[in-house]
């Protein structure tokens, strides 16, 4: 086993292995403290970062932080590594890699070509040496474009997942939130419901309803009911209209097992989705959610820090050419990310790592009421992710998810970013919004209709 050490200020710091250097170099967060793997002091943390900066990227290809023999995610990472793509940076250590990423030569084309040559551990490592502005600046160089019924991830654009959750899956309640969201110009990433039920027949009815709404109003978007991959497969077998196949994923085999999945099952879900041939512009159809702390909460982290575990989940994601991936950054609670500062940094790290690995990354910018966070913290992360070129964010009525009991970004929040940064919807959806007299965007000027659009007037008039 290789040892690592660094001498500074008259003291020599020793670390047993790469896994320990990574954990101790990680900016402070409660989850690593809970796991007992965080640096014991600020000085030890920086010493670990200095140690990490000197480790050659090549070392990451020979020192697995979770053994190859016992973890299929490690096997996926190692077996799919593209040595030719890695060549441009193969001579660098982690510190030089940070400098390289910030330089002019690391443009969109270079970073896109590099992605298959990078491992999650390499990008997690370099992120630990970066400040917030580095995470934003480098991430915005990269675009990851995906297609199903529209085109997501283009430069100067940002999409929203319309999240019309209801505590009892009431169809009219869900439809009311969908219409509200559409009238605020949301829903191009997906109209995606977290169901209260886990019954397959209930899921099938929700799928039929979402499909009928999309067809009736000819909305260039896709639907998803965020249920377990096995339930989506069962729904497809029953003939229900499944656009996107959803699954929560994590960065270790054992954590995925706690979700009731493995790579083979994801492959089956992916193939079941492909068999539907429902995509019109492309066949990116997987939708994954991730989040720091999930491996630790399943006691499946192998002593690896939560941010590195999270980056490993993106290796799982990119295998299946997803349409959408998002970290649900503040959902897990204060024992993993204690406050606004930790949530903000984690959201930016996740977005940066995913983009560098070629994953179409969005973010559920969120918090729970037992975290030390509030709307101001969310505004900071929202603004920073907008600047960083995030593919999509959530859109929910008034930031309040009445089914999952947490706060995420609102329909209004998306319009704030459009106005502030001139970010437009997916092109096909933007045209639909204009055609429907809902929203026209002229640079940073938004023209929102004040009347109910003609297409929706008859159904609203029929309501008591």
């Amino acid at each position, binding site marked *: 086993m290789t040892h690592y050490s660094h001498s500074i200020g008259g003291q020599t710091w020793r670390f047993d292995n790469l896994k320990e250097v990574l954990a101790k170099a990680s900016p402070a967060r*409660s989850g690593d403290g*809970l796991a007992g793997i965080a640096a014991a002091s600020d000085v030890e943390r920086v010493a670990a970062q200095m140690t990490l900066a000197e480790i050659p990227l090549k070392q990451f290809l020979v020192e697995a932080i979770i053994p190859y023999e016992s973890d299929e995610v490690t096997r996926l990472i190692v077996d799919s590594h593209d040595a030719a793509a890695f060549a441009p940076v193969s001579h660098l250590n982690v510190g030089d890699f940070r400098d390289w990423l910030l330089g002019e030569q690391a443009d969109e084309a270079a970073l896109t070509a590099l992605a298959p040559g990078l491992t999650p551990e390499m990008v997690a490592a370099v992120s630990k040496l970066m400040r917030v502005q580095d995470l934003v600046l480098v991430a915005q160089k990269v675009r990851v474009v995906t297609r199903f019924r529209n085109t997501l991830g283009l430069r100067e654009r940002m999409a929203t997942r319309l999240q*019309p*959750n*209801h*505590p*009892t899956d*009431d*169809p*009219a*309640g*869900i*439809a*009311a*939130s*969908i*219409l*509200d969201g559409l009238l605020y110009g949301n829903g191009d990433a997906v109209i995606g419901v977290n169901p209260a*039920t886990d*019954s397959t*027949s*209930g899921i099938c*009815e929700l799928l039929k*309803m979402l499909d*009928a*709404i999309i067809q*009736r109003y000819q909305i260039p978007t896709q639907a998803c009911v965020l249920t377990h991959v096995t339930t989506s497969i069962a729904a497809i077998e029953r003939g229900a209209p499944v656009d996107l196949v959803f699954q929560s994923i994590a960065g270790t085999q054992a954590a995925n097992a706690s979700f009731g999945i493995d790579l083979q099952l994801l492959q089956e879900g992916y193939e079941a989705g492909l068999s539907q041939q429902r995509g019109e512009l492309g066949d990116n159809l997987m939708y994954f959610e991730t989040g720091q702390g999930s491996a630790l909460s399943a006691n499946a982290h192998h002593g690896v820090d939560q941010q590195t575990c999270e980056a490993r989940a993106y290796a799982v994601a990119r295998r299946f050419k997803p349409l959408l991936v998002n970290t649900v950054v503040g959902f897990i*609670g204060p*024992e993993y990310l*204690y406050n606004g500062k930790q949530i903000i940094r984690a959201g930016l790290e996740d977005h940066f790592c995913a983009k560098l690995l070629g994953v179409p990354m969005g973010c559920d910018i969120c918090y*729970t*009421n*037992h975290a030390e966070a*509030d*709307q101001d913290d969310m505004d900071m992360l929202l603004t920073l992710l907008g600047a960083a070129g995030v593919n999509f964010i959530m859109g*929910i*009525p*008034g930031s*309040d*998810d*009445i089914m999952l*009991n*947490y*706060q995420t970004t*609102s329909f*209004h929040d998306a*319009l*704030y970013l*459009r*106005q502030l940064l001139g970010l437009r919807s997916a092109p096909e959806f933007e045209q639909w919004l204009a055609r429907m007299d809902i929203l026209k965007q002229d640079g940073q000027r*938004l023209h*929102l209709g004040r*009347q*109910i659009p003609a297409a*929706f007037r008859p*159904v*609203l008039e*029929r*309501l*008591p």
Partner: protein
Amino acid sequence: MTSPEEAAMADKPAIDNPWQTLRQLTPARIALGRAGSSLTTRAQLDFQFAHAQARDAVHLALAIEPLAKRIQALGLECLSLHSAAADRQSYLQRPDLGRRLDEASAERLQAYAANHPNGFDLAIVIADGLSALAVERHALPLLEHIREQIQRENWTLAPITLVEQGRVAIADEIAETLKARMVVILLGERPGLSSPDSLGLYFTYAPKTGLNDASRNCISNIRQEGLGYPLAAHRLLYLLREACRRKLSGIQLKDEADMPVLDQATVQQRNFLLE
């Protein structure tokens, strides 16, 4: 010259949404209107108030003495305990500490158990969890409904244990010490913006330290606007009886009183967007 209409607009710069009628269909914060394209002052302050209520619920300390007195007034024995999480800060960051008793509490409970070596059929634990407000409002009335139902079963009931800074799994340690065959814990759920006082209930058959959620059954959202006390107690008793019959709890013991499955007819009938 400005028209009267324009003057009125200048008076009220916020823009209403003409689809207010949708609000009857969901408790979600829809049709909020806008200021430019941002949240209006009114919607913003409504949200902040709800968040403040939820925050206060998380940090409110459980008034343990008055609760103990009210339980004793029902003719029930009562023991006050504390988890190994000394305060709310440590409770929020160290879930492991909230899952076990502090030393003094563990000793007190062991002393009690030594004097009652035959054990009990059922132990009921009440813990603050993430909302002492939920416990203050709902624990006692729910306890009365549960008690009424279990009297018919002739089960022996352990003293009611009240736990400060407690998480769900602490019930396993308490029940194991008391030699209880079944344990139910009532505790405050993570407060939502519109539900600062939601009580949750977890049940385990053959409880012992180290079990995980797969061994438990949960009934949640017990509050005024959610699940009522009689129905919650009814569903719990169903679980208790089934667990006694099948000698297990958790994922293998499904709550048959699940919510009704949507069917095609209701979807078509009730979804106005597809009419």
